[in-house]
């Protein structure tokens, strides 16, 4: 590699050619403040916070957009630099709703943090913000233009990674805004509610719709039995909210802290992930044997469901009829468990903790309720909202001692856990389908080909002479590619796992702010570690699932399953 000699703040170092000043500075322990820069995105260089002094250059240089050159002498902290950064931040604040104490991202805001760090003490410019309406039309995400700093991270995420381009710049110069075409409400656009924009937003311009108060009310209502389920991906990310190393597995602390908040029963969505594998696996075998529509597509990810319903409704027959694990769980809680504990469904309040914003939308689908009013899942909280609740309640997450999930829906297999990572549903399905079809025991449970962050992955499995070809896709720009292949009849796969968010659910739109690929890999590694630690690693060996079939569901794809665990997806083309 071509190495260059440079000097940053009087320290001489060698860095690789092509490195930006911003990243070179990191190597000598200097964090240059920045707002629009994002390690996984194209350099935008529009916030101008990251300026530095380069010897010989007439003006200050944006360190994110300037590559190092041989012999470059850089100073990141001169009086001139500090003054310039202050002016930039003051100008941003002059067009910003500075209601920090009541802001949803108080203490988690990039702008606030930089203003504090560089010591902004006065605002020399008059505030010129013209207040605009906050868009609360979506059941999943909220857009507050009064907080927006026009960095453009959300646009890149929505356009490049998700391929949707719901948001773009509107107007010019000082009057520019970021919003949907024609200034439409989000709910009227073809937004899929994935919330990826909220993950990369450095301020509070896009956030999840907050539903915390409803949960507090239910917990404090003596007539309600409050049941909570936790998605696989939450256990490998919640720790980040409390200063833990990314990729730390906090399952036991998660359970204990939910109990501390006052939930009556703490269950695991992994249980219904196992159930999904049984139902979806049998659906796949049925399609393979009876000549059904192939390739079959997974239906766990509500952002992806929104995508196919709105963009490719003609391909809906490919979609598995299975509900997502969250909704299977909700249906079981109100349609089975309630009776088992001698309660009526109205007395049950069902909460789910998800890494996802689109789950909020999914839970409000009319068909996901008993009668259009009593929903199977009453409230969905994101990982971020749960962290907020814990802070509100003063739960010391680092201190709290680990606890175990409750029976019977707290028992799950490693196959259920890996649902949280891209390729996980496929791997879980292969573990079960192989053994069901061949009657043999699988020697090696790790299907390495389906793991990792590559956009489109492929694998083949030999089911006693029948070769089944599968594919795994994450992020919607990649899903679009696969859908075009299917449309043209060129997708010779039997089964495709599609996840809306980059990296799968561990990279979901409800996960802690500031997600990067580096972080996603750490969370994914933790997911597979959690899988390895479990005594049961195949869904069909989960004794609680088997008991449920014996006592209640009778058989996969049976009449009860049809009623509670399967659904119909609809054409919602916009």
């Amino acid at each position, binding site marked *: 590699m071509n190495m260059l000699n440079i000097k940053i703040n009087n320290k001489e170092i060698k860095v690789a050619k092509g490195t930006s000043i911003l990243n070179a500075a990191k190597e000598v322990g200097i964090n240059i403040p920045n707002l629009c820069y994002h390690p996984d995105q194209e350099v935008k260089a529009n916030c101008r916070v990251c300026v530095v002094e380069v010897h010989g250059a007439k003006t200050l240089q944006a360190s994110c957009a300037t590559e190092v050159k041989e012999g470059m002498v850089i100073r990141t902290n001169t009086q001139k630099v500090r003054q310039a950064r202050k002016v930039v931040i003051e100008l941003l604040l002059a067009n910003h709703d500075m209601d920090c104490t009541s802001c949803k991202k108080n203490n988690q805001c990039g702008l606030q943090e930089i203003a504090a760090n560089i010591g902004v003490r006065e605002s020399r410019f008059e505030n010129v913000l013209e207040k605009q309406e906050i868009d609360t039309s979506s059941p999943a995400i909220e857009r507050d233009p009064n907080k927006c700093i026009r960095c453009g991270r959300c646009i890149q995420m929505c*356009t490049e990674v998700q391929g*949707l*381009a*719901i*948001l*773009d*710049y*509107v*107007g*010019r110069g000082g009057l520019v805004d970021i919003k*949907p*075409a*024609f200034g439409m409400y989000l709910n009227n656009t073809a937004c899929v509610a994935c919330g990826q924009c909220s993950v990369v937003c450095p301020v509070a311009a896009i956030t999840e719709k907050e539903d915390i108060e409803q949960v507090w009310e239910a917990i404090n209502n003596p007539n309600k039995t409050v049941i909570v389920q936790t998605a696989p991906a939450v256990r490998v990310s919640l720790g980040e909210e409390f200063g833990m190393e990314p990729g730390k597995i906090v399952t036991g602390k998660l359970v204990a802290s939910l109990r501390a908040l006052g939930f009556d029963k703490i269950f695991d969505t992994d249980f219904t992930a196992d159930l999904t594998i049984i139902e979806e696996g049998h659906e796949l075998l049925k399609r393979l044997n009876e000549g059904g529509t192939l390739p079959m597509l997974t239906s766990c990810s509500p952002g992806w469901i929104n995508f196919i319903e709105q963009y490719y409704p003609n391909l809906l027959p490919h979609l598995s009829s299975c509900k997502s694990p969250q909704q299977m769980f909700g249906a079981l809680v109100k349609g089975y468990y309630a009776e088992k504990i001698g309660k009526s469904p109205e007395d049950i309040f069902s909460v789910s903790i998800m890494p996802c914003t689109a789950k909020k939308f999914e839970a409000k689908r009319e068909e996901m309720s008993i009668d259009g009013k009593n929903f199977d899942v009453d409230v969905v909280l994101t990982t971020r909202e749960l962290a907020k609740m814990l802070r509100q309640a003063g739960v010391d997450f680092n201190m709290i001692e680990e606890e175990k999930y409750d029976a019977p829906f707290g028992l799950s297999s490693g196959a259920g856990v890996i649902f949280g990572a891209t390729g996980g549903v496929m791997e879980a399905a292969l573990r079960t389908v192989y053994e069901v079809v061949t009657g043999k025991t699988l020697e090696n449970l790790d299907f390495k080909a389906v793991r990792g962050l590559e956009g489109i992955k492929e694998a083949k499995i030999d089911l006693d002479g029948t070769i089944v070809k599968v594919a795994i896709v994450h992020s919607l720009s990649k899903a679009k590619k696969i859908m075009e292949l299917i449309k043209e009849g060129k997708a010779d796969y039997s089964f495709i796992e599609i996840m809306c968010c980059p990296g799968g659910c561990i990279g979901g739109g409800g996960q802690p702010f500031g997600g990067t690929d580096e972080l996603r890999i750490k969370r994914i590694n933790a997911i597979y570690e959690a899988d390895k630690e479990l005594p049961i690693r195949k869904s069909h060996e989960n004794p609680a699932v088997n008991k449920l079939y014996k006592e209640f569901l009778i058989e996969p794809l049976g009449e009860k399953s049809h009623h509670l665990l399967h659904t119909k997806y609809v054409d919602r083309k916009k």
Partner: protein
Amino acid sequence: MLVKEALDKYGKTPDKLIGAMLAYQKSTLCNYLTEEDIKEFAKETKIPESRIYSIASFYSLLSMKERGKYIVMVCYDVPCYINGSVNVVNELEKILEIKMGQTTTDKLFTIEYSSCLGCCDKAPALQIGATLYGNLTPEKISSILSTYRGKKDE
């Protein structure tokens, strides 16, 4: 002209888009792009709707507001300002009975500010279509406007 015709003439690639949008806009009765037009451009070019809207909102030559047949663009830059562009605007507003940015009720004229027209030697100046009028005084405005009043379609 249809959106499709404009795109057939100019090409459907992103680099040809602005030309096609301008040509199409010129052919419309009220000199602007409707929501349907923008959706049509998006559909035909496969460029996202939000991007087409973004472009239309960025360039002052493109409008999403109904405008008159003739756009009277008055230079807003310093040399024209010093030489009395304010008086020109006042006279335009008086004769046309509208304010800056508005359109006459007969849908014939819209007055807009423009950035430098590149003829500071003739300040103050305005432009209608491809024709430039310089060294303006309020007295000249009325006759300039009247040349457009009875004008047949070119």
